[in-house]
């Protein structure tokens, strides 16, 4: 009988993990392209942001950044709890991570609505274009990570994971670390 294509061979990296690593590398290069084009306009002698544009909500977004970083920490602790066979703690921390990720997205969406109301639209200026492109692309990635997180959470509550079967959680954690780690860089570049 032929072995399954995605079978995990002991002592070898699971194909799903290698695939995710390559995907994250592609995403890093994608964001590098966006950031490089933003930097070309950001660091020029002309005033930035352009005059007449609404002020970005620095305080609220700082708190939101803390919330996202906290979700990265709870994700890490959840994985540690799973490895230590503390399934109840793992499920609770994973739930907290999903809630924190949802709060981040909701606050971002609320702030976007306010900025649109104040006139910062995609077509208002190059500042608006870059803002929505960079921050919006990241928000899309957080949404994707949240969908994966909810899927893993659903399986976790059904008892699909333990200290030996943790690949799904590990992959979810890797992707979540990517979106969490990327955000402070975007925050520093765009908001400060």
């Amino acid at each position, binding site marked *: 009988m032929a072995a399954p294509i995605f079978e995990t061979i*002991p*002592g*070898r*990296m699971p194909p799903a*993990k*290698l695939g995710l*690593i*390559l995907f994250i*590398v592609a995403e*890093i*290069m994608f964001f*590098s392209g966006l*950031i*490089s*084009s933003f*930097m*070309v*306009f*950001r*660091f*020029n*002698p*002309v005033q930035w942001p352009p005059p007449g544009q609404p002020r970005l909500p620095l305080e609220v977004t700082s708190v939101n950044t803390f919330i996202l970083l906290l979700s990265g920490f709870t994700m890490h602790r959840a994985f540690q709890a799973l490895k230590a066979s503390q399934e109840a703690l793992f499920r609770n921390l994973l739930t907290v991570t999903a809630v924190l990720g949802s709060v981040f997205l909701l606050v971002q969406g609320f702030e976007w609505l306010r900025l649109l109301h104040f006139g910062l639209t995609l077509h208002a200026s190059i500042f608006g274009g870059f803002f929505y492109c960079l921050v919006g692309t990241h928000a899309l990635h957080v949404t994707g990570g949240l969908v994966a997180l909810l899927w893993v959470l659903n399986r976790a509550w059904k008892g699909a994971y333990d200290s030996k079967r943790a690949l799904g959680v590990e992959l979810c954690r890797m992707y979540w670390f990517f979106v969490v780690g990327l955000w402070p860089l975007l925050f520093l570049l765009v908001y400060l």
Partner: protein
Amino acid sequence: MNSWLKRFIVTVGCQLLTVDWVWACPRCVDATPYKLGLQLAVVVLLPVPFACAYWVYRSIRDAEEPSSPAQPASSLTPSLNPVQE
């Protein structure tokens, strides 16, 4: 120097020399108001692909574990005189 290392260095050098920014006209680069941003983008982001490649390499290497204890080289080599009466 190993021949494969020479080939690697020559290949990387050839690829770098064909990159457009190496051949960019210095006057044009100086004239643009975005010179600082261009320079910063290159300096900050140039290491990114190398760091990514190194991460992939490290991940694959760290995941590889010997499935069985190493065998001595002599046991892997077929004996020249296998049958001794």
